[in-house]
């Protein structure tokens, strides 16, 4: 019966080699969690930085959860995509981070990665765009043995999340 408000924004991203970026995001929770209001997933606009290399999205996130347990604490999963000059989109990175568990404002940096693929695919990516993508997106936030995956590092997504917790103390969770 505890409640969690997640209020914040996806500020932007830095460190990507691509320039025009947008981000698809979603929040994944365990079975004990119930979304009372808010949108669970979304997509930002495409931002092309003019000054500096940070792409600013300032995409609002506003969710209200009710939970009956701590398991499956909400986690944010992100997909950063880049749009090239032809308007084509390609994957620039996957990332995931847990929503912080302490109340207050949090600055989060979520590093990203993307599958590398075979050398052929890398070559193709370099010249004609596109790139290998995960067939099953849940590998982004699940701990399935990813060690088989070869990945390259993407940039970092910056988030600013404010958290309000309610009634956790009632169930012995001190925060």
């Amino acid at each position, binding site marked *: 019966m505890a409640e969690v408000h997640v209020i914040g924004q996806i500020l932007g991203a830095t460190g990507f080699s691509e320039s025009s970026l947008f981000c698809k995001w979603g929040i994944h929770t*365990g079975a004990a969690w119930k979304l*009372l*209001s808010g949108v669970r997933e979304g997509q930002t606009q495409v931002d092309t930085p003019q000054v500096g290399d940070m792409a600013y999205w300032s995409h609002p996130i506003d969710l209200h959860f009710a939970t009956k347990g701590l398991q499956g604490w909400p986690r944010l999963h992100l997909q950063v995509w880049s749009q090239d000059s032809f308007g084509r989109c390609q994957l620039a990175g996957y990332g995931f981070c847990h929503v912080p568990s302490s109340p207050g404002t949090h600055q989060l940096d979520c590093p990203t990665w993307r599958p590398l*693929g075979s050398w052929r695919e890398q070559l193709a990516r370099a010249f004609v765009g596109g790139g290998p993508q995960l067939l099953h997106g849940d590998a982004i936030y699940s701990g*399935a043995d990813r060690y088989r995956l070869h990945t390259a590092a993407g940039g970092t997504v910056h988030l600013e999340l404010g958290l309000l917790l309610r009634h956790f103390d009632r169930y012995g969770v001190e925060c």
Partner: protein
Amino acid sequence: MNPQEEKVKIITEEFVENDEDADVGRQKTSRVQRRKRKKQLPTAGPDEMVSEKSHLGDQQEPGHEDPNADARPLSMPTRRGPRSLPPIPSASRTGFAEFSMRERMREKLQAARSKAESALLQEIPTPRPRRLRSPSEKELETEFGTEPGGKIQTTQQEDDSQSYSRVKFRDSVRKIKSKTPVPPGFPSAEEAYNFFTFNFDPEPEESEEKPKAKNRDGANQEEGEGEEEEAPVPEGIDKTDEEELLDDKDAVDFLLGLDRGAEDIVAVRPADYESVHIRLQKEKELLFIPSRRTVPTYKKLPENVQPRFLEDEGLYIGARLEVPRTNQNIMENRLLMQEPVSAQPLLPSGAPEQLREGRRWFGDDGRILALPNPIKPFPSRPLVLSQEQDIKAELETLYKKAVKYVHRSQHMIGSGDPPGNFQLDIDISGLIFTHHPCFSREHVLAAKLAQLYDQYLARRQRNKAKFLTDKLQALRNAVQMSLNPAKTPKSLDTTRRAINEYKSEIRQTRKLRDIEQEKDRTLLKTIIKVWKEMKSLREFQRFTNTPLKLVLRKEKVDQKADEEAYEAEVQAEISELLEEHREEYEQRMDEYRSAHQQWKAWKKAQRTKKKKKKQGVEEHPDDEMEEPYPGEDPVKPVPPEPTNQAVIEQEVRERAAQSRRRPGEPMLVPELSLAGSVTPNDQCPRVEVLRREDVKRRSVYLKVLFNDKEVSRTNSRPLGADFRVHFGQIFNLQIVNWPESLTLQVYETVGHSGTTLLAEVFLPIPETTVVTGRAPLEEVEFSSNQHVTLDHEGVGSGVPFSFEADGSNQLTLMTSGKVSNSVSWAIGENGIPLIPPLSQQNIGFRSALKRADAISSIGTSGLTDMKKLAKWAAESKLDPNDPNNAPLMQLILVATSGESYVPDFFRLEQLQQEFNFVSDEELNRSKRFRLLRLRSQEVPEFRNYKQIPVYDREIMEKVFQDYEKRLRDRNVIETKDHIDTHRAIVAKYLQQVRESVINRFLIAKHHFLLADLIVEEEVPNISILGLRLFKLAEQKRPLRPRRKGRKKVTAQNLSDGDIKLLVNIIRAYDIPVRKPITSKFQQPPRSSRTFSEKQAASPTTHSPTHSADYPLSQVLVRPFVEVSFQRTICHTTTADGPNPSWNEELELPFRAPNGNYSTTSLQSVKDDVFINIFDEVLYDVLEDDRERASGIHTRIERHWLGCVKIPFSTIYFQAKIDGTFKIDTPPVLLGYSKEQSVVAERGFDPVRSLSEGSYITLFITMEPQLVPGESVREKFDSQEDEKLLQATEKFQAECALKFPNRQCLTTVIDISGKTVFITRYLKPLNPPQELLNAYPNNPQATAELVARYVSLIPFLPDTVSFAGICDLWSTSDQFLDLLAGDEEEHAVLLCNYFLSLGKKAWLMMGNAIPEGPTAYVLTREQSHYLIWNPCSGHFYGQFDTFCPLKSVGCLIGPDNIWFNIQRHDSPLRINFDITKPKLWKSFFSRSLPYPGLSSVQPEELIYQRTDKAAAAELQDRIEKILKEKIMDWRPRHLTRWNRYCTSTLRHFLPLLERSQGEDVEDDHRAELLKQLGDYRFSGFPLHMPYSELKPLIEAVYSTGVHNIDVPNVEFALAVYIHPYPKNVLSVWIYVASLIRNR
């Protein structure tokens, strides 16, 4: 070479000479300056160098300092040198280091140190060369000498100023340098050096080098120093040289007597050095080096303990880490030695203790205790990623091309990628009938023959008999071999066993071979037999139908060899059989013997028993009981008969003869060919010709059904004479899901008649490995159970027939055949098979790598499958003793033994339950959460909740009541509100349709275009700019008002009270006027005379009776207008006369439902604006005439005259409504008439007088103006032809270009959300027969009646039912079922009725008031056009000024659309002749002919008669409810009902219905007067279509009848419902108030 450098040299040399006589004292300052200078200028430009030098040179004093100055330019490059590699010579120099000289040099050095120190202190700041090179190198370096390097060094110098030794060396260098240019001056040092080097370094290279360059010595020395920094070891060696050199330097210093002070400070010390020996010695003292020898085991174990090896004892020991033996030894030694030492202070008790302490590290086996090897035997990351199959499904990646982002209505994360397209290729190559009704008898035989022959071929190809024979042979050989003991040196036992095995196998094989051979033979025989039958048949019928021909080829055989082989075979068999029999015999004999023995024993026992029995029968009577117990006496065994060889031989031979080719008999090879000729038609009997023709007429095609849906079909191919059909078509099925079924349907077409389904063929879904190109053609058989009897030679199907003449031996064949096909998965462009993923399918092959990890091997889900787990455990050879595996092993043990309880469920989130804060139920019970969730789901009841209480206790339970009730009632049809069940059902249905449509469009509504989000000011182009400029120059004309657009307000920032409805009532025409009362009953006593009457009449006459007599003295009417909206009422002032002019603006507040001002909510406002016109009547109620002088006592009454009803939605969408409307007056208005007014005004306005009825001019708008919601831009899917859709778009674009304001409609959206071409809605449809029968001879009356019928169907705008979504068009039957619809539906139905009545009718799209864009119906009568308003049932002539239709956009007929391209669009001014292409642009034209579109309307409308009883019941209920309502509305007064009047009214209402409210007024009045003479009566009948109760109540309320508060008023209310077919109800309500005249 560098010329600059040389120049520098030369110059400096010059200075050297000049400086000789310069002052020495200034040297110090000059140095400092120099240093500073260097920092600035260093660019190493030669000129600067020169200048610098010259500058320095001025100040420098001669003496010994000039060599320094000389050396400087040389040393400078060296300073820059460090970047280059260190030179090699240093190594060589160490070679000539002289040890013996060390002592002497040291002494000298000591002596020189004090001097040098003082000298060098001053020189600290000077740049310190790190390394020197050979002169040639130096010169080269100057080329790329850069300042930064120099700078760094200068800074470094300062840091290093303390390091005396360095400075010292630098100094020495300088000194040497200074010396080198003048070699003859100081030969001693150099010679000594050379001498020494020569002596001790006899290497030829060195000897060459050394004498060559003097100054290189210095360089070398410096290098030595450089090395000193890096490697301290050669330091000592270097030193010797330096000492030597210093010696020279000392000499110089001494000679010149320079810098004594410095030498005092600086001390030159050698680097500390310890010789290796000493060091080793010391190390030995300090360090302990354990030995590398193996430690004997006894040392490691306690005394008298034998090493124990646990592994041998069966305990589990993990694999030890691999450590080299020597390392282990060292460790062991160390532990043994060191431990006591370290433990010494702690454990003084003695050596044994120490030893024990040391042994603690050793296990029982005498080895160091070690943890199991933690290193996995395989790398956890595969080295090569090429094994795609290793990647687990969820980690699979797929290369995706960068694709343009397609804007879709949903773009969700997680849902991820759209399912790929998969493809299934179905290759249908052909069809062969094995039986067909058209088969002649010969065909039947031929088919049989062909089948047999196929079988034969297949058998021959397999040749099983041969294979078995060979096997038999091989086995026999093997037996022979093993029987030969010489060749098989195995043990006797194994041989025997092998032989036995062989023998049993021989027996088996022989049996099989015999069977196969027999089969072969019978097959051959059958073939021959069938062929013979066929031949005889052909002969019999004297024609041939099939080209089949069987040829039996005889293969000669060598008779003798054959016979021999045959005999040998027989013999072998006999011998084997004999042997078998013998064995069997022996076995049986054994059995017999044992049995015999037993029997004998038993017999014996029996005999003894019998004896006993005889003795003691008396004593043991019980024995008798036992007697039968031994039971069946063992039968005396019969000895088996020995085998008879002759018999066996006989048997074998018989069998051989039967199943085998006789020896010498030629081998028969049948060959079937199609070489035969078919008898041509003209030689055949008639029946056969008929048959052949029948065959020709038949054709076959196949339908391909995927998941029971037809996806494609083959071409229709004629059936060949051989009953084979070749298709050769490949169908590529693009699929999304895993196929469930794949079926082919075989259809046969006979001639031009219909097709029949012959059979269904179920194709197997291919394995995932079967991909296109690899799939073999397969034949799938099918058969049909159809019964066909034919009247020709064809044998039919399912019908018995016979080959015999007498009809015996009947045969029944069913149509059957084979389809040869292949189904396979297509391969994508990159070689990936396009197979949909299937979770069950994932069982791929596993690599050996996976074996190590249970989860990766069988997957997480596998863990729950115990069998799998156990299997894996067995496969991977898990060590059961490994404690790591203990839980797993236990689990497996439990699972496999099946003893304990294994949960058969899978828990997704373990331990969730245990850690839950609260249970699910409690969570769901939380009212707050529920409210929050419902609000976010936008459930209508909770959509507009602004704030939700923080605590559960603050939320009332009743909040949910409505919602729960609604949920509960969703499927329960509530009859209370609706009274009529059908309408209740319809309302429910409508609600459901609405919900589903809304849900469907929800996403579409959230789909924004760029323009919705971004307001971008258009960049002004030149023309706009020009216009602006012109405007600036324009003259100011203040008297010319300019229209300013009102500001539109978006919905979100509105709240209650912000929006007002402005109703401007301008004027009215032809208001009914009061009738002079002529009747004597009505002749009032004074009190009943109306006040106004008097007032009005007074100017002309003073007596009311006069006014009644005088027709022209008009009784006036004092009308005022009352506008009621949302129960707010405003009214105008009272005006006089039948044509009043008010010109008043009324302001009514608007409240949106639930305070929600969003577009959707506003669109769904169902409220109407009622504009009622009343007559204000003043009654004088003064009781006493005497008081008249002193007071006026009147009562105001108002009489309803009529009303105009405008739905709010119309205002909302139109933004304003402006025009003259017809007032909806009741058909009977007692006490009022219009005729007079017509008479009175005829002269003035003839046009208006033509029309009947009253009119009111209004202007209605909203303040502020609201932005109406836009319709959905979404493109809907359509089943229309793509070309047609393109054409519609083009047509609409063209029309919009010419006349943007005219409505042009080509496609509409039907109720299921699909785009439909509009003409499909128009089709003649039968009106109810009842209506047609009403006026059989009067088509006009019939048309009117039909129009009335249509108008009686309630009007419900789409915008209300499907808020803001779009205009949905329902078909006429849907419309009639729903009994609700807007203008389009009414118009379509009316148009269809008119078409069916044989009229020329069109749907007319245009603008009308007050509806706005609407649909009317246009009909062409003999000479003129009529415009019908489908919602009211009224019709207007084309030139009727009061026609509400103001503009015409397009006409729609059942087969075409015409767009109005005339200049005007008012129906008054346009020509309706659609044949003129100049006036009407038609959609289908010569370039695009009408394709003959089928209608979406039903074939025929079916009308149920409405249940009269139900209507009567409804009537009563409505009456009751209305009466209650009226009483409710008069809470402060008593409401009396006049029953007599009510019953009178009730009788009168059906009359009104019959006459449609016309021409009954007078009769009615007369009757009423007759009956209710004493009453003053005011009332009127209301007429409405019936939809719901609410509008009725609203209508009654709006008349204001209840507002009369005269104390003795009585009311009368009657309701009449006239049922029309299809539950269309016409409702009449008569409301009246009666006041008794006293």
